[in-house]
């Protein structure tokens, strides 16, 4: 169906309203190959009837109302959408949910414990004001979580190498790097 906006204004408003109202009555039959997918996100398991090709980011944001994963490029180039899948940093902008059955997906929202306490990495980002606009923050925090579980005491070069899959336009890099070192120290103390 096509809606042509015509002039003057009131005409196209009226016209498009009629055309689209009819569209609202349709059943949502757009799904190409419906499949039941069981997803575990932040320890919550849910069954969803969706096209298995649906990208994870849309499921997180639109089905689960989770804001952490941000749409940045859809090309695995900027890292704003990074979440953990079985502990591994994963670009949710391209990941089809059909590949995620039985896997554990973790987002920044899942780092807050049941008592509302922030994770050491979140604390470190806050304490150092390690952001400007904050759009890249949640993806970075998830990458850092994976980094610190592999390497509890990363050097500056190792931190930078790990974060190179993420872009920050505001130039908050120095404090983000410091926040990672600070979070690593906090975690080492907590585990002692």
């Amino acid at each position: 169906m096509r809606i042509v906006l015509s002039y003057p204004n009131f005409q196209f408003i009226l016209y498009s309203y009629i055309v689209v109202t009819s569209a609202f009555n349709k059943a949502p039959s757009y799904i190409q190959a419906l499949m039941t997918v069981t997803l575990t996100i932040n320890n919550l398991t849910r069954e969803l009837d969706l096209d298995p090709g649906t990208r994870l980011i849309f499921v997180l944001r639109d089905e689960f109302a989770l804001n952490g994963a941000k749409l940045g490029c859809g090309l695995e180039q900027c890292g704003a959408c990074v979440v953990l899948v079985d502990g591994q940093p994963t670009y949710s902008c391209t990941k089809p949910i059909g590949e995620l059955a039985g896997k554990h997906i973790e987002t920044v929202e899942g780092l807050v414990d049941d008592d509302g306490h922030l994770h050491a990495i979140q604390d470190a980002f806050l304490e150092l004001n390690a952001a400007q606009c904050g759009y890249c923050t949640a993806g970075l925090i998830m990458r850092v979580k994976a980094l610190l579980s592999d390497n509890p005491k990363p050097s500056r070069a190792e931190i930078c190498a790990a974060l190179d899959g993420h872009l920050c336009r505001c130039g908050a890099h120095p404090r983000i790097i410091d926040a990672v070192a600070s979070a690593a120290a906090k975690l080492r103390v907590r585990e002692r």
Partner: protein
Amino acid sequence: MPANIERTPRLDRWIRVEENGTIIVSTGKVEIGQGIKTALAMIAAEELDVSVQRIRVQTADTEITPNEFVTAGSMSIEDSGSAVRVASATARQILLELAAEKLDADVSSLTVEDGFVTSTESNEQTDYWSLHSGNLFEVDINEVPSLKDPHTYHTVGTKTTRTDLVAKVRGDVAFVQDLRLPHMWHGRLIKPPTANSTLVECPDVIDLPGVEIVRDGSFVGVVAQREELAVTAAQRLAARVKWQSEPLTPAMLGIPAYLRTHVSKSLPVVNGMPLDEPVAEHVRPIDAVQTLDASYYRPFQMHASIGPSVACAQFVNGKLTVHSHSQGVELLKRALADVLDLSLDRVRVIHAEGAGCYGHNGADDVGLDAALLAIAIQPRPVMVKWTRADEHGFEPYTPAAVIDMQASLDGDGRIIDWCHDTFSFSHNGRPRPSPGHTNLQTAWWRGKPITPVPRQPAMMAEVGIHRNLEPIYTLPHKRLVKHFVAHSPLRTSSLRSLGAFANVFAIESFMDELAHAADTNPLEFRLAHLEDDRAREVLDLLHRRAPVLSPDDNAGRGIAMARYKNRQTYCAVMVDVHVDYDGQVRLDHAVISADAGLVIDPDGLVNQLEGGFIQAASWALKEQVTWDHEGVTSRDWESYPILTFSEVPTIETYLVDRRVDKAMGAGEASTGPTPAAIANAIFAAVGVRVRELPFTPERVKHAAG
């Protein structure tokens, strides 16, 4: 009296006290990552004597907040900050008078701590929120109240946690993208190859039931109930539509020559002001011992925000509401009303945060896109997102610029003649009102198109092409010219620091060249031509904080400095680089010194200065918009790379403490000196002058000959 208070004198437009102990501060400015919400909260908390945590800052909403125009030009602290300070002090005065009455005490005997008011005579206590009744602030601010002595500040000037950051690290609702209105649909666009393309073929239907195609001339969008469906539909449709395009002219490689040969207007610049007068003939002084010439180039570069532009719009009963990360909600409101032929009272624009970038990106344009789709599916709201390729391909870029410098030295190595010619396109592309025209790009493509606003040279002091064209140095003879070129192959607008980036790059690179010609140390050479004491102090601070330079053969250090707009923050930058044999420039370490007058939020200021350095370093080393006859080719992060974590140097920043001086805007202060400091460091390292941005390995090798 702050101008914005004179424009909006009603106190309750600025400050409200809630019964729960929260204090709401309204500003017409918007948060773009610069930390203005935190800084304004600190200013209000200071004058009101409450903790920062009590303050909630309401940012721009065309139906609620004072109109403070555009959030641009590093003016928010100076404009909104001074207004909030006066409003907060007025509110405090009113509350204390009421408290004195209630506690039966003299105002001078009252002390305030976090909003609790105590009489030192009787020890009796009350608080702001129980004193405050509904109409208490329904008064006009007619005079400047007594303001706190800056020496007694305990909140302003201290480190605080960014008020907006908790939600962002938790994943709470923080951005316009996080809005989920009931029954909200999702929209995507099918953008043309270039801005001058015409749609010649477009399918009427798409084989995805439940998806609607919205078409209006060469504007094509899709709407769907689910986001991924809108994405799929847009991709499928893009493969099936056909366009007719004119090539973008002039071609990319011809830009420097085109800029010099297609000048629409040349304007002499005197004291930062362009004059509508003929440019005087230049005569080289007879006592010149040496005359140097150099030309510098900046390509088109982009805002390149990490999040593509987005807007959420709804059209109900003839009224349009748009949630937008525009930096100028009032301008956008007016532009939408003009384009859609709606009266102003039928358009509301509410600011919500987007991804940062510091300038006029696609935020306003997507506001119109969302409005058109919302009108088509009214009364449903629609969230419309540009793609990465849309943003990289259609945001308004910062214009390319050529800067020709010439200076003469006398026998003592002093500058006796200075010529600076900047050739560039307009920086003024925001959606400003202009009868019969619009800068909202989508309106150019509709069935009944509205043409772009004709480009004119900006004539105010220190704006556009001539921002920081005036050097900070005291020079006996200056010939400064702004050459405005009206027709650009690519749409251009405002990016952080406008023309100051290219002008300061040229001035401060050239000062380094002159210093070497005069056989003088670049710092001494600058000081010899600098009378402004505050500028000298900033340079001195930089010098005192300089660490030991690497003794490596291919390591070098460069410095540069400027005062933003010649009236805001002073900033000096020192950069140490390594240049590899293949021309690769590595930033090792940077030192920044700055004088921003009274510092409101020191951590925020450091964040802005360092962030500005990094964005400018990215422009300097990596960025340029590329295009061919089919359109812009730098449409993703591989074809338009920006600085990565591994490429960012360690940075130290030092601030001059000036408690009693006026707070000055600082958000754009470090961008200008940065490319010059890098270029000067490259010269110090390997003896090669790079004058064309970006300093890619190819350019460095080419400059080396």
